[in-house]
């Protein structure tokens, strides 16, 4: 188990280094930081000074090590667009996105898992077919359409929920949360539901397929031949065999939402990372984009690492495949 954990962590670090290098190349090769940072009437001396200060006269590898060293010390560079430290920009937007991602994950688990199990256990039931029909819509409808539909119904027609913003935000010092106020919860429901539409549909389909496949397997037949109750067979013996791919997908989807909820955030004017990313692309703000890329990589790798460290608890066979 320790070997397994260590090898996973080493892999994670290596991948992060590679991502950082690619992001660094982006910063180093695209755009002209001097043009962005210097005023139009700067002297040649000022220019040389800045080159030396930014280390642009150093070889690539030295600059990369410097870049990594700075990051480890919490210095992520400055935005070309606003001149603010990139770290501040991201820290400001992070809570909104993370909260949105977790609420939508919660919805996904609370709705998708029971529905998926129901469809897998009763694939031919009327209700099961109905769920599958709805889930097809969930898979195919683009996020912005779902978002606009939800706004049209719940905000415009019924006037129940706000269509934009985060509501009242409580500042905890290190984290600005919208989850401690009623208006914050009301504001997060529609975007979270929008984001989870696809996830719910996806999890339902995946669980259903997995369960139907496991249900055919010889060990489930043997469990039946031993007279175990249907409840025990499905909810313990079969489900446990489907958990590995399900938690993998849930993890990846969580990463996806944190990193790429651009469209949904835009529809709901949600002040999160997605809109920061969009603004940075529009402004060709390379340092922010680069750090954002590394951050996304970090999010995915950490989630993946947690998921992989959970594997052996579910299926001890993964430890054997290691050796």
């Amino acid at each position: 188990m320790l070997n397994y954990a260590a090898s996973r962590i080493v892999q994670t670090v290596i991948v992060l280094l590679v991502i950082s290098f690619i992001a660094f190349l982006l910063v180093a090769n695209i755009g002209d930081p001097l043009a962005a940072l210097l005023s139009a009437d700067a002297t040649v001396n000022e220019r040389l000074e800045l080159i030396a200060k930014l280390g642009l006269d150093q070889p690539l590898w030295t600059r990369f090590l410097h870049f990594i060293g700075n990051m480890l010390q919490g210095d992520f560079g400055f935005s070309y667009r606003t001149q603010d430290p990139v770290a501040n920009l991201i820290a400001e937007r992070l809570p909104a996105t993370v909260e949105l991602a977790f609420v939508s994950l919660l919805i996904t688990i609370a709705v998708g898992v029971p529905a998926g199990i129901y469809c897998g256990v009763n694939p031919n039931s009327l209700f099961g077919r109905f769920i599958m029909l709805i889930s097809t819509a969930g898979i195919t409808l683009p996020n912005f359409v779902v978002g606009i539909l939800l706004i049209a119904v719940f905000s415009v027609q019924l006037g129940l929920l706000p269509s934009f913003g985060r509501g009242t935000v409580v500042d905890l010092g290190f984290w600005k949360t919208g989850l401690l106020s009623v208006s914050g919860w009301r504001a997060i429901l529609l975007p979270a539901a929008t984001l989870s539409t696809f996830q719910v549909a996806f999890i339902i389909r995946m669980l259903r397929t997995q369960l139907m496949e496991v249900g055919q397997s010889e060990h489930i037949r043997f469990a039946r031949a031993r007279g175990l109750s249907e409840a025990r067979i499905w909810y313990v013996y079969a489900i446990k065999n489907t958990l590995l791919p399900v938690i993998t997908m849930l993890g990846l989807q969580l990463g996806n939402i944190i990193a790429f909820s651009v469209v949904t955030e835009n529809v709901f004017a949600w002040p999160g990372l997605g809109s920061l990313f969009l603004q940075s692309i529009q402004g060709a703000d390379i340092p922010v984009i680069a750090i954002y890329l590394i951050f996304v990589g970090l999010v995915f790798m950490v989630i993946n690492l947690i998921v992989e460290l959970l594997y052996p608890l579910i299926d001890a066979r993964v430890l054997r495949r290691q050796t």
Partner: protein
Amino acid sequence: MITSTAPLLDVRDLTVTINRDGRLVTALDKVSFFVNPGEVLGIVGESGAGKSITGAAIIDLLVPPLKRTGGTITLAGTRLDQLSPKAMRSVRGGRIGFVFQDPMTSLNPVITIGQQLCDTIQAHLKLGGSQTKKRALDWLDRVGLPNPDVQFKRFPHQLSGGMRQRVVIALALCADPVLVIADEPTTALDVSVQAHILELLRDLHRESNVSMMLITHDLGVIAKMADRVAVLYAGRVAEISPVGELFSAPKHPYTRGLIRATPMPSATGEMRLDQIPGAMPGLGAVPPGCAFNPRCFRAQGDCRATIPPLHHEKSSAFSCFHPLERVTA
């Protein structure tokens, strides 16, 4: 002994059909046999003869589109074919244990051996937690696994094939069934392990006097284990005889063909091997009359016209119009 007691399991006219695109095909055609208390009945036949279907049909565990469409199954006076699904569940594992063929696939890979045993015991016997565990450990010991405490916590992938099959046997027997159906219990194992598993089955059978239905295609296994043998061919019973009689004086030409197709050294040490010409008809392709008639050297007009009924004699039965005569040497 055979006639004095009422049979434990009595199967009459068991019929199983398969729905193939709306066409009903008979997979098991009026199969009848019985198993006496404490007896081992071998069920033998080629692949596709309906051996496994017979076993699965008894505990109502046929895989759709296979479906039981007729006949009666009586276990110690209870009509199994009329039981509710819930009552049937308590029969499975509780009254009838089932040993599956392939130990690599029949154990749940993500649940410990001990948990699988305890769940099975608790499904049938009203025992407390510690009693259940004690019984599970006891069974691991009885099937010959060293260090039951250690095995209890292990997962199937940590055990060898032979050890897994021992676990499968423990799982089938741990709730004290009166009948065990073993479906090719040694087919998936190495030859050296096969002998150990057969020995274990025989020992357990002797200890507990549980009745057994041993499904196999291996006449060697039959000779070692069975008291009586039912020979199946194309979903029908060809012959049922006590094992000695079956080998020394088979009545059905198919039985003799099957015996002669098994490599066995003769008295002179010479290996004799005769194969039956042709192949067994597949599902839905059974010829009219006796299913064996196209391959039978004794076939005549009546064999092609009508299905021979099961003809009962003192201790045996066969379905053939022109049975082989006893060779009195």
